[in-house]
């Protein structure tokens, strides 16, 4: 790669996505910061990345909408180049017991967490196949591995993304493209700060590290997977959870 590699991180206006975008920028990549509604947050990430000398771009990207994905990729291709590193991070969660869970919320959970990564990957693959080089990193969750009452939709969608990762890895592994999943445990982000005190304490008790993770700690693994050193890591599921699922 003579010129800088282009990365797209979905849901990068905050949390793990933001940390991943900034870490990739520090690593010398051009970074597209995908956001659904938080334009200010995305612009802040872009400014920070630029301060580190990276070429970064905020792109509106709603992973539920095929048109939005198409437009976003078009914009990135025009401004930065073809996406070679795709971090499917945008996520949605809403807890509720199955007996009372609404169909709409179920669908949204599936569309954002499972269908979104599929749609974005599909859009990115032609460019990666052509270049015989690519990195797809799917942010799943320990919820892909362990069940949680109140999270039937969430855990199902994350387990789905985990298997999508493995099958896609088998499809394109022979073309210099790796597809891996990162499973964060309980990480301090907006998604988790809205969980009740009881839930937070329960997770803390289950985590050998005795603390929650930071977005930067998850980003570190994403950056490794996105790089040249991880060329032999394919179809892997890497937990970053302080021992929670051990």
């Amino acid at each position, binding site marked *: 790669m003579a010129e800088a590699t282009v990365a797209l991180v979905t849901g990068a206006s905050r949390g793990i996505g933001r940390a991943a975008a900034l870490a990739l920028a520090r690593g010398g990549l051009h970074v597209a910061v995908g956001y659904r509604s938080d334009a200010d947050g995305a612009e802040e990430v872009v400014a920070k990345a630029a301060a580190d000398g990276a070429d970064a771009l905020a792109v509106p990207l709603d992973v539920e909408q095929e048109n939005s994905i198409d437009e976003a990729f078009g914009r990135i291709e025009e401004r930065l180049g073809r996406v070679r590193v795709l971090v499917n991070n945008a996520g949605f969660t809403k807890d509720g017991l199955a007996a009372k869970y609404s169909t709409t919320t179920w669908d949204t959970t599936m569309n954002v967490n499972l269908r979104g990564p599929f749609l974005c990957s599909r859009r990115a693959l*032609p460019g990666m*196949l*052509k270049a015989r080089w690519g990195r797809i990193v799917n942010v799943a969750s320990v919820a892909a591995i362990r069940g949680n009452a109140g999270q039937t939709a969430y855990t199902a969608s994350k387990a789905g993304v985990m298997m999508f990762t493995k099958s896609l890895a088998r499809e394109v592994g022979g073309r210099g493209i790796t597809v891996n999943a990162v499973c964060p445990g309980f990480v301090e982000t907006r998604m988790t700060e809205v969980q009740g005190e009881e839930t937070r304490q329960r997770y803390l008790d289950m985590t050998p590290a005795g603390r929650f993770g930071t977005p930067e700690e998850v980003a570190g693994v994403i950056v490794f997977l996105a790089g040249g050193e991880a060329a032999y890591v394919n179809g892997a599921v890497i937990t970053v959870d302080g021992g929670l699922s051990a």
Partner: protein
Amino acid sequence: MDMNELQTKVCTILAENLSIPIEQVTPQARFQEDLDADSLDLVEAVLALEEEFNVTIPEEEMEGVRTVGQAIQLVADKLGVAA
């Protein structure tokens, strides 16, 4: 563009994508049996054709395509190029 031109273009793209000499890419050549193309090779070839000719070839339409000639005809139909 006429059929001859289209045929040459399609065969060139297929030869490049399948990494085979263009002489082997004849209209009668079968992708699997004669050109040793696996399913990913075919997907890549279709993606390349889509990009080159600015057409969309949905999965359902790919299914019936077994030979180079059928692929050429598929693109020709999309572009309105007559034989």
